[in-house]
């Protein structure tokens, strides 16, 4: 296992597994967000329900904390491996080319690193905004609906969210297929299908997330 962690292939596997964890979370989160279209009660109630979940066993918010711990672990592993691999890559080419032209030209593949950083910054802001309420005009933890609509009431915040979500879409588009490849699941026969699935998932997630700020901006949600 230590050997595996040391090898570049092992690191990619860690990245893929943690990325998959994050992806599952993002999918669930996106679906949950859609409850906003059923009104404040639906969304807030959902948040409340989550915190009550299995409360007799884990206590109030217990499940949520477990999930947060898992997420945090994934984020840490994902980011650590990402940074290590990026540093290796820099070291592997100390002198760059004067003239360089990508051939394959997959935009999402080339923006994984900066895209990841953008997503990370976004998440920090997002948690301060909605969960903690620190940078939110409404800022009452638990009042998710009002926090969200208040936040997106400022167009520049809504635009920032939309940008971040688009970056996430690119990240997933390459990341999901890449994870299959890193884990050795992608083969010549499956590659096209897997790439198509990754594209589909990325589009759905992006569209799902985008729908909320757009709805607020266009006044569908107030």
């Amino acid at each position: 296992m230590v050997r595996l962690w040391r090898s570049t292939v092992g690191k990619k596997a860690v990245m893929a597994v943690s990325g998959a964890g994050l992806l599952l979370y993002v999918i669930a989160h996106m679906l949950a967000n859609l409850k906003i279209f059923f009104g404040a009660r639906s969304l807030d109630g959902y948040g409340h329900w989550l915190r009550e979940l299995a409360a007799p066993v884990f206590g109030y918010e217990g499940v949520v904390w477990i999930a947060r711990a898992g997420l945090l672990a994934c984020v840490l592993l994902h980011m650590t491996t990402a940074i290590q691999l990026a540093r290796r890559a820099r070291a592997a080419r100390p002198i760059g080319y004067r003239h360089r032209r990508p051939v394959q030209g997959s935009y999402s593949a080339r923006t994984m690193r900066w895209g990841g950083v953008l997503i990370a910054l976004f998440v920090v802001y997002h948690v301060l905004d909605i969960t903690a309420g620190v940078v939110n005009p409404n800022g009452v933890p638990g009042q998710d609906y009002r926090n969200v609509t208040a936040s997106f009431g400022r167009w520049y915040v809504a635009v920032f969210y939309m940008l971040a979500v688009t970056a996430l879409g690119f990240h997933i588009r390459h990341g999901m297929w890449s994870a299959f490849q890193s884990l050795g699941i992608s083969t010549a026969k499956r590659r096209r299908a897997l790439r198509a699935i990754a594209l589909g998932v990325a589009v759905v997630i992006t569209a799902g997330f985008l729908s909320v700020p757009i709805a607020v901006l266009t006044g569908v949600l107030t």
Partner: protein
Amino acid sequence: MRLTLRIWRQRGTSDAGELVTYPMDDVSPDMSFLEMLDVLNEELILRGEEPVAFDHDCREGICGMCGLMINGVAHGPERATTACQLHMRHFADGDTVTIEPWRARPFPVVRDLVVDRSAFDRIIESGGYISAPTGSAPDAHAVPVPKPDADTAFEAAACIGCGACVAACPNGSAMLFTAAKATHLGLLPQGQPERYSRAEAMVRTHDELGFGGCTNTGECTAVCPKGIPLDTIGRLNSDLLRGALRS
């Protein structure tokens, strides 16, 4: 045709290099890229200048010795073509052509466009073989190999070890080269006993030599003169992980 060449000149590994511009007046479209450099070198020698050093041998796309970054693309603009098989008819009169050596820490520049690729040999030495002693092999027909496996193994075995994959990879990774050999041997029944240890050893050596990790960007396959497919890398990953889980 008239061309303007910008060529990387560097005396030795520890020297600084620079791009030097050479105008060329009379390039025939039938020349290969290397023949065009031959003509330049003849001119340079007669002018009392040092000719440009570049690696080459077979000049028919099979030895893997040649390798130039031509206008930012490994082996130049034609797909599935080595620099020696690239012909000048793919350039237009008046073009400026920038020629640089492969760049990666494990491939130090020896002189001008010549780099040291012996790191590839180290990777093969660490396990890229089948431990078959000479002189006492079973009859060749003793073990049939399904044709599809044989064909896929051949496809991977076609790698010429040119290093273009490393040169093009944004991470400076040699994973396509490593995976090609692991796939070739791992697909054949004769290669099964060492399949997992081979993958592990080759990747370990690959990493120790200072190549970057693969992040599946796919530039390598795009420039590979033999079109080694990307799923060889998936196969190597799978072998490595399976091997690790087994032990």
